[in-house]
């Protein structure tokens, strides 16, 4: 059994907005083991990014606030660390790559300067060593003429190249965990494929664990070992990737998979659609947050929010209903 790297328990984060308090994350628990890739899937506003940002305490506060929970990294609670301690974790042991490579790089600093920062900070390198290492890293992620391009600024790179730089920067201190927050959403399909293949290759070479946040069920199927599906600030289903796609159990997961057109199906069928809209939670829900849109909804769903329970040793679901015959009922 691989070592447990990250153990998040009961994480709760909320935001103060002019319209009221938004409960973005409502008690999320998950684990990540060495060398594992966890896919976190959900629609916008489901709390998937906020969860990961909360773990690294990168939530802007105010308006954000982490209310409860633990995030144990190798046994140490990230949420309780002193600011200097968590800074030593960020970028060095856990690093992040963000969605939009256009805005994630500082426009007035050269790529070389930005690449060197974590190396100087965490690896104790001097400027020359950092420069050499930056070139190696850029070559590793497949940027041609890396040595010449260090002095360039972000606006001189293309979108796909910028995301490669972000990944190189994220990997520069050989972190144990790489959190990728929708890293391919802003990119075109062919570039997206390049980035996914790149990360898969680097994962083999460097052996880090990855948390891959996305709304794209296709990308996750391609890269993740295990998948957690989020809805309304909760993880509502979690299973190894093949298990989840072969045997989706929560009505939301079922609906999501059903609403995708089948690219390799020969005959054309009408898409399944989940009616209604994802919620914004101004109160911590007493009921199951998916109840208003659920086809399996029962009396009990309006009264109690189901907990995430194991239905097999590796498959956890938060639902009162029996959906085992679900595929036919959709």
């Amino acid at each position, binding site marked *: 059994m691989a070592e447990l790297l990250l153990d998040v328990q009961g994480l709760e984060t909320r935001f103060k907005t002019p319209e009221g308090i938004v409960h973005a994350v409502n008690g999320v628990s998950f684990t990540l083991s060495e060398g594992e890739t966890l896919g976190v899937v959900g629609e916008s506003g489901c709390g998937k990014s906020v969860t990961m940002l909360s773990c690294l305490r990168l939530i802007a506060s105010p308006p954000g606030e982490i209310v409860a929970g633990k995030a144990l990294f190798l046994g140490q609670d990230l949420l309780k660390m002193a600011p200097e301690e968590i800074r030593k974790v960020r970028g060095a042991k856990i690093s992040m790559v963000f969605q939009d490579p256009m805005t994630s790089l*500082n426009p*007035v600093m050269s790529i070389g300067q930005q690449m060197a920062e974590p190396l100087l900070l965490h690896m104790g390198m001097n400027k020359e060593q950092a420069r050499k290492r930056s070139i190696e890293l850029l070559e590793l992620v497949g940027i041609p003429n890396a040595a010449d391009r260090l002095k360039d600024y972000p606006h001189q790179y293309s979108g796909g190249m910028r995301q490669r730089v972000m990944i190189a920067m994220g990997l520069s201190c050989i972190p144990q965990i790489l959190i990728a927050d929708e890293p391919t959403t802003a990119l075109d399909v062919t570039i997206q494929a390049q980035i996914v293949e790149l990360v898969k290759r680097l994962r083999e070479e460097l052996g880090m664990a990855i948390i891959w946040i996305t709304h794209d069920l296709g990308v996750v199927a391609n890269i993740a070992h295990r998948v957690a599906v989020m809805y309304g600030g909760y993880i509502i289903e979690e299973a190894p990737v093949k298990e989840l796609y072969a045997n989706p159990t929560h009505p939301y997961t079922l609906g999501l998979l059903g609403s995708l057109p089948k690219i390799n199906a020969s005959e054309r069928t009408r898409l399944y659609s989940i009616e209604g809209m994802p919620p914004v939670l101004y109160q911590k829900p007493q009921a199951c947050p998916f109840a208003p849109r659920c086809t399996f909804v029962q009396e009990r769903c309006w009264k109690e929010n189901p907990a995430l329970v194991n239905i097999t040793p590796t498959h956890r679901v938060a639902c009162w209903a029996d959906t085992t015959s679900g595929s036919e009922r959709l």
Partner: protein
Amino acid sequence: MGTYIVRRLLLVPLLIFGVTIIIFGMLQFLGPIERSALYVRDFPKNDKQIQGLIKKYGLDRPIYEQYWRWLTGVKDPISGEREGGVLFGDFGYSRTASQPVINIIKNRFPNTLDLALWAVFPMLSVGIWLGVQAAVHQNGWIDQLARIFSIVGTSFPTFVFGLLVLIVFYANLQWFPPGKMSDWVSVLLYSGDFKQYTHLLSIDALLNGRIDVFLDAMRHMFLPILTLSYINWATFVRVTRSSMLETLRMDYVTTARAKGLKESVVINKHARPNAMISITTLAGMSVVGLLGGVVITETVFNYPGIGKAAADAAQQLDVVTILGFAVFNGLILILANLVVDIMYGIIDPRVRLA
């Protein structure tokens, strides 16, 4: 970058044309006789002589011809010397000061420059520092303080603020007198023992090694500097704050934090330089504005700069003189704006490397 600078340079003649046209246009409100004051020291009392002047200087010619003459001057048919021509530094003859406008400028402009130079530093540094602090500690006490400070500041007219500090620091405490220098300094200046290298009193004092003169100059300039800075701080705090707040919400700031950088590094190395880009223009305009906007401050503190001269001339409705100042100011400002634009290009790599 090359194209950028060339474009800005090409704009200069256009700006000069525009600015001079506006001022020349104002000149047209005057009759031809009054306009002849551009060229001669005394109005001849004799009607025939006046007509002669008008003829000689072409003040009855078509307007575009007059404009050209006004810009470049006319050759005196007898002596062959050029008379007039604002582009050659002849801004006309001041009726009220009984000397050519350019002489007033030569005497007074160094004083204004002296004041402006000393005012720039506190204006920029304190204003920007406070704005950054307010944004970093959004809604904290320093932010609230900065906001109050900024609102009160923008609500205080220069002259009210100036008069109030005069009541406190001069009338009651006798610390900082108005004017430019104490009597003993002016005696010293005329004595010839004091070499005037730059004609900026504070700088010359340092160059002569006369700390006492320097302190006297600063003592006289302190209140004007405070007034000029205070009035500009308000705007700076507000603009810096909002620009910084916007920058702090950018993704690359989160990236910087996610790298494990210290908050001070995140703010000073990542956020602030970006926020500065949008402040550069304002900073440039304020520095430029200092040169033009000293009119009131100098008047309140009775400081013999070019602004006070303009105000005095305006009060006596000596139009030729103030228009002369306006042309001079316009030319200086065009130059200063050019410098600001080029600096902007240097700061922002997206412009520099375009």
